[in-house]
C-alpha cells in the first residue's frame, strides 16, 4: 500500500452519542454522551463488561439496531459524512464497503447453506459491481491474504468444513472485501482457543498496517486490549468512565472501575515465588478501594489421595463401513494417569479437542472408559459402585444459564441431588438449601425464586451450592468461570478458594484460561490431543515449560501490559490438529521424563521437531 492511499482514508469521529431502547415502560438509556475519535491506521478499544453498551455502540455505527425501538442522538462522522442522517439506501451502500464488522461467534456468523467463497464474493459484487467470475478471483485472493491454506480448493467448501479459527479468517476476508475505512471487531477472539486467538489478532494487525484502516476493537479482555489497542475507552453501564492511551491507563488508571477491571485481569507470572493458590484482590467499584486479599494457608494433605486415575482411555467410533468395521475413531483420551490429594487443585489445561472435558466426565462416571481405571478415595469405580462413588465427585459446568432447570426454584435445584440419593427429608432440605446459599455468599431468602431472576455470576454461585449439597470431596469445575465477566470471574474463583480452605476440597479445574489456572491451582496437567504432555507443580510448569506445546500455549496468552507486546513474527499459522484417527491407528508408546520432582514431561514426538 502506498502512503498516499493510506492518507486518503477517512477517520471516525463520534460525539455526544446517546442511544435508548424502547420497552414497555418507555425509553431506557443504554449509552450516554459517548465521544471519541479514531484516526486512520489507529486502533481504539472499547472495554467493558456485559451491559456496558459496547456492542450496542458498534451496531449503531452500522445502522444495524432495530429502527422502531431504538433512538440514536448525537453525531457519528466518517470523514465528512454524517452517518446518522444517511438514508437507508446510502447506509446500505456504506455497510460492508466503508465500514465492515467482524462478530464474536465465528461458528454461527456464516450461512451454513452457502459455500465460503460465495459468501465472500457476494460482498464484493454488492459494492463493486464486478462480474461473478472476477469476484471469484478476488475472493480467492482475499482468502489467501487471510492465510487460508489452499484457498482455491476451499472456495466451494461450506462453513461446517472449517474450524472456528478458519471461519473467523473467512469473516475477516468478508470484512476486508471492499477495503473499508473502518473495521469494527466485536469480541472477535473471545470464542477462540488461545493459540488461535493470537493468530487472529496478529492477522488483524497485519492487515491494518497494509490497508491503513481505522480499527474499533470491542472487548472485555484487558490482555487483548494491551496487545492491540493504541487508545482505549472504558465503559460502565452506558457511561464512559475513562479514556486515554493504553499505556497511560495501564500504568495509571484513575477511575475505580478501570482499576477493578485491571486488578481482575489475571497476569501470567504474577504468582512466581508462591506454590499455593492466591485469591484475586477485589475492588469496590464505588469507592475504588481494594479489599485486602487474605493470604491462604496450605490445604494440601498428600497423605490422603482422593482420586487416582490410571491409564485412562476412551475412544469413540465416528465412521463405519456398512458392515460395522470402524474406519475412524476419536481418540478422545489416551492413557491419562493422574492423582489428586485432599485439599489440592489440579488444573487440566488444553485447547478444543484436547480431551480435557472428556477426562472430567470419565472421572465423574458420566462416561465409561474404554480402558484404564478410576479410584475414588481408594475405591475403584465399577458399574455397581458408580452411583455411591459419584456422590463424592460433583461437577460445575461452564454455562450457568443452561445448567439450571428454569422450572425448578433455586432451593429445589440445590437440594435435587439430596432427593435423588434420598438423603434428607423435605424439612431438612429447606434448611440445607438455606445454609448452602449463605455459604456461597447469597441470601437464603432466594431459595423460593427461579433461576432467570439472577445474573450469570449469581447463577454460577447457585451451581456451586448445588455441588456442595452432597458434601463431595472432589469437585470437577469444567470451564466453570470461562463464561463470566472478569470481575465476576474473580469473585467466583475467590469463592472456590474459600471453600477449599474451609472444607479441604480437592478440585479438578478444567480450563483453557492459563492466567486463571495460574491463580487457582497447585498442580497443572497440560493435555494435547487426548494425552497429557506435561504435568507437574504449577510453579514448575509456568516458570519452566518444557514440552513444545506447553510453551506455545503459554506464549500465546495475551500479556496485559502494553509495554511488553509480543513479537508477532513468532506466531505460526498452524491449526489445532484433530484427534480423529484411522480405524487401525495404534497410539505410539509414550515415555515421560522427570525434569524436577513431580514435573513429568512427555518426550516430544517427531511431529514437534522444529
Amino acid at each position, binding site marked *: 500500500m502506498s502512503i498516499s492511499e493510506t492518507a486518503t482514508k477517512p477517520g471516525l469521529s463520534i460525539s455526544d452519542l446517546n442511544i435508548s431502547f424502547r420497552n414497555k415502560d418507555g425509553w431506557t438509556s443504554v449509552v450516554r454522551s459517548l465521544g471519541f475519535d479514531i484516526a486512520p491506521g489507529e486502533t481504539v478499544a472499547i472495554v467493558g463488561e456485559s451491559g456496558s453498551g459496547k456492542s450496542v455502540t458498534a451496531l449503531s455505527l*452500522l445502522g*444495524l439496531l432495530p429502527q422502531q425501538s431504538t433512538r440514536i442522538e448525537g453525531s457519528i462522522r466518517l470523514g465528512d459524512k454524517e452517518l446518522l442522517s444517511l438514508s437507508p439506501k446510502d447506509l*446500505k*451502500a*456504506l*455497510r*460492508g*464497503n466503508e465500514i*465492515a*464488522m467482524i*462478530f464474536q*461467534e465465528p461458528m*454461527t*456468523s*456464516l*450461512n*451454513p*447453506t*452457502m*459455500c465460503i467463497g460465495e459468501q465472500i464474493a*457476494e*460482498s464484493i459484487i*454488492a*459494492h463493486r459491481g464486478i462480474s461473478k467470475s472476477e469476484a471469484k478471483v478476488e475472493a480467492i485472493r482475499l482468502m489467501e491474504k487471510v492465510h487460508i491454506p489452499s484457498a482455491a480448493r476451499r472456495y466451494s467448501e*461450506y462453513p*461446517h468444513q472449517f474450524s472456528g479459527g478458519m471461519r473467523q479468517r473467512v*469473516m475477516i476476508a*468478508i470484512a476486508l472485501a471492499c477495503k473499508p475505512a473502518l473495521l469494527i471487531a466485536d469480541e472477535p477472539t473471545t470464542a477462540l482457543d488461545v493459540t488461535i486467538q493470537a493468530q487472529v489478532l496478529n492477522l488483524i494487525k497485519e492487515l491494518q498496517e497494509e490497508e491503513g484502516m481505522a480499527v474499533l476493537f470491542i472487548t472485555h479482555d484487558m490482555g487483548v486490549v494491551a496487545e492491540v489497542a493504541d487508545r482505549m475507552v472504558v465503559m460502565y453501564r452506558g457511561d464512559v468512565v475513562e479514556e486515554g492511551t493504553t499505556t497511560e491507563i495501564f500504568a495509571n488508571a484513575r477511575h475505580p472501575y478501570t482499576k477493578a477491571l485491571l486488578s481482575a485481569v489475571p497476569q501470567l507470572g504474577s504468582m512466581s515465588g508462591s506454590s499455593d493458590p492466591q485469591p484475586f484482590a477485589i475492588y469496590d467499584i464505588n469507592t475504588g478501594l481494594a479489599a485486602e486479599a487474605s493470604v491462604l494457608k496450605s490445604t494440601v494433605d498428600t497423605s490422603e489421595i482422593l482420586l487416582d486415575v490410571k491409564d485412562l482411555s476412551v475412544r469413540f467410533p465416528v465412521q463405519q463401513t456398512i458392515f460395522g468395521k470402524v474406519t475412524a475413531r476419536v481418540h478422545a483420551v489416551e492413557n491419562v494417569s493422574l492423582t489428586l490429594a485432599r485439599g489440592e487443585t489440579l488444573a487440566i489445561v488444553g485447547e478444543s479437542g484436547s480431551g480435557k472435558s472428556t477426562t472430567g466426565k470419565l472421572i465423574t462416571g458420566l462416561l465409561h472408559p474404554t480402558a484404564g481405571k478410576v479410584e475414588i478415595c481408594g475405591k475403584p469405580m465399577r458399574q455397581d459402585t458408580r452411583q455411591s462413588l459419584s456422590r463424592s465427585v460433583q461437577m460445575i459446568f461452564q454455562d450457568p444459564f443452561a445448567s439450571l432447570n428454569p422450572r425448578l426454584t433455586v432451593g429445589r435445584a440445590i437440594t435435587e441431588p439430596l432427593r435423588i440419593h434420598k438423603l434428607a427429608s423435605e424439612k431438612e432440605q429447606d434448611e440445607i438449601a438455606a445454609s448452602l446459599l449463605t455459604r456461597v455468599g447469597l441470601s437464603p431468602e432466594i431459595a423460593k425464586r427461579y433461576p432467570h431472576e439472577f445474573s450469570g455470576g449469581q447463577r454460577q454461585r447457585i451451581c456451586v451450592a448445588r455441588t456442595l449439597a452432597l458434601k463431595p470431596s472432589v469437585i470437577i469445575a469444567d470451564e466453570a468461570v470461562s463464561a463470566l465477566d472478569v470481575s465476576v470471574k474473580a469473585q467466583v474463583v475467590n469463592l472456590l478458594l474459600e471453600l477449599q480452605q474451609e472444607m479441604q476440597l480437592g478440585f479438578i479445574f478444567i480450563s483453557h484460561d492459563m492466567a486463571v489456572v495460574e491463580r487457582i491451582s497447585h498442580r497443572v496437567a497440560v493435555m494435547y490431543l487426548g494425552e497429557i504432555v506435561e504435568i507437574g507443580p504449577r510453579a514448575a510448569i509456568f516458570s519452566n515449560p518444557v514440552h513444545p506445546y506447553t510453551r506455545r500455549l503459554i506464549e500465546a496468552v495475551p500479556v496485559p501490559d502494553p509495554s511488553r507486546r509480543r513479537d508477532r513474527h513468532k506466531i505460526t499459522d498452524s491449526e489445532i490438529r484433530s484427534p480423529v484417527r484411522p480405524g487401525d491407528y495404534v497410539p505410539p508408546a509414550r515415555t515421560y521424563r522427570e525434569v524436577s520432582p513431580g514435573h513429568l514431561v512427555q518426550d516430544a514426538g517427531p511431529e514437534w521437531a522444529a
Partner: protein
Amino acid sequence: MFWFLRRGIASLIMLWVIVTLVFMSIHFVPGDPVELLLSQDGGSADPATVQMIREDLGLNRPIVEQYVEKLKGLASFDLGRSMVDDSSVSAEIARRLPRTLELIGLAALISLVIGVPAGIYAALHTGRSFDRAASYVAGFAQGIPVFVLGTLLILVFSQMLKLTPAGGFVAFSQAPGRHMMLLLMPSLSIGIGLAAIVFRITRASTLEVLPLDYVRTARAKGLGDRRIVLHHILRNALIPVITIFALQIGSLLGGTVLVEYVFNWPGLSGMLVSGVNARDYPTVTGVILVISALFIGLNFLVDVLYGLTDPRVRK
C-alpha cells in the same frame, strides 16, 4: 454422491419390506380370505366355489411359491386381476393414478405459491395487519373440512356464478380446457388447506432464522433486502417446510377420497375405498403397494432436496 446412492439403496430395501408385509397380511388375516369374501350375505360359502377362487388366487400353493410368484409378478408390473370383474388391477391403477397425481400436483403448486411468499412476508412484518389477517385466514382454512370447502366451492362457482362445472371428469386428450376446469376446483379444495399449513411453517421457520448471526452478517455486508431474503433466510428456512410438506403430500396419496367423491373425480383413493368395500384383495393390495412405492419415492426425493439445500446432510 455417496450419500445419494446410499439413500437410494435404503429406499429399495424399504420397498421390498413393504411388498413382503402386504403379501403376508393376506395370510395373517384371521379366517380364510376367500370364505370371508363369499360369506358376506350371512350364509356359509359354497365349498366348491371357495376351492375355485383359492386356486384362482393361487392360495392353495405353498407359501414360498406364492411369494416368489408375487415378486415375479411385481417385476413385470402385474398386480393380479380384480375379483369383482376380472379386470387387470395394473391397468386400472395406470388409468386412475395420473388423475390423482395431477390433482395432488396442482394442489401442491397452489399451496406453495400462496403459502411460501405469504409466510415469508408475514414473518418479515410480524404483528402488522397482513400478518394478523393471514394468521386468521390460515386458521380458518386449516380448520374447514375439505368436503365442506368443496361443497362451498361448488355452491359459489358452479351454482351461483356458473363459472365452472360442478364435477366430473373428461380426459385431457379429449377436451384440454374442460379437463383443466374440472381439475381446478378439487385441487383448490385440497390446496387451500395445504396452503394454510405451508404458510404457518414458513412463517415460523423464517422467524427462527431471522435473528440468527449469519443474517446479521449478511446485513453488515450491506447486501440488498432481496438477496438477504432469498439467499440467506429462505434457503435455511425452507428445510422444515420441505419436511412437513412432503409428509402432507404423502398422506394425500391415499387421502383424496373425500374430494374425489365430492367432485366425482375417478382417482386412486376412490378405487381403494371401493376395493375395500367389495373385499377385492388384489385391488386393495395393488393400490396399497403403489401408494407405498410412491411414498418411498417421495421420501427419497425429499432426501435429495435436503442434500441440495443443506450441505451438512451430504455425508
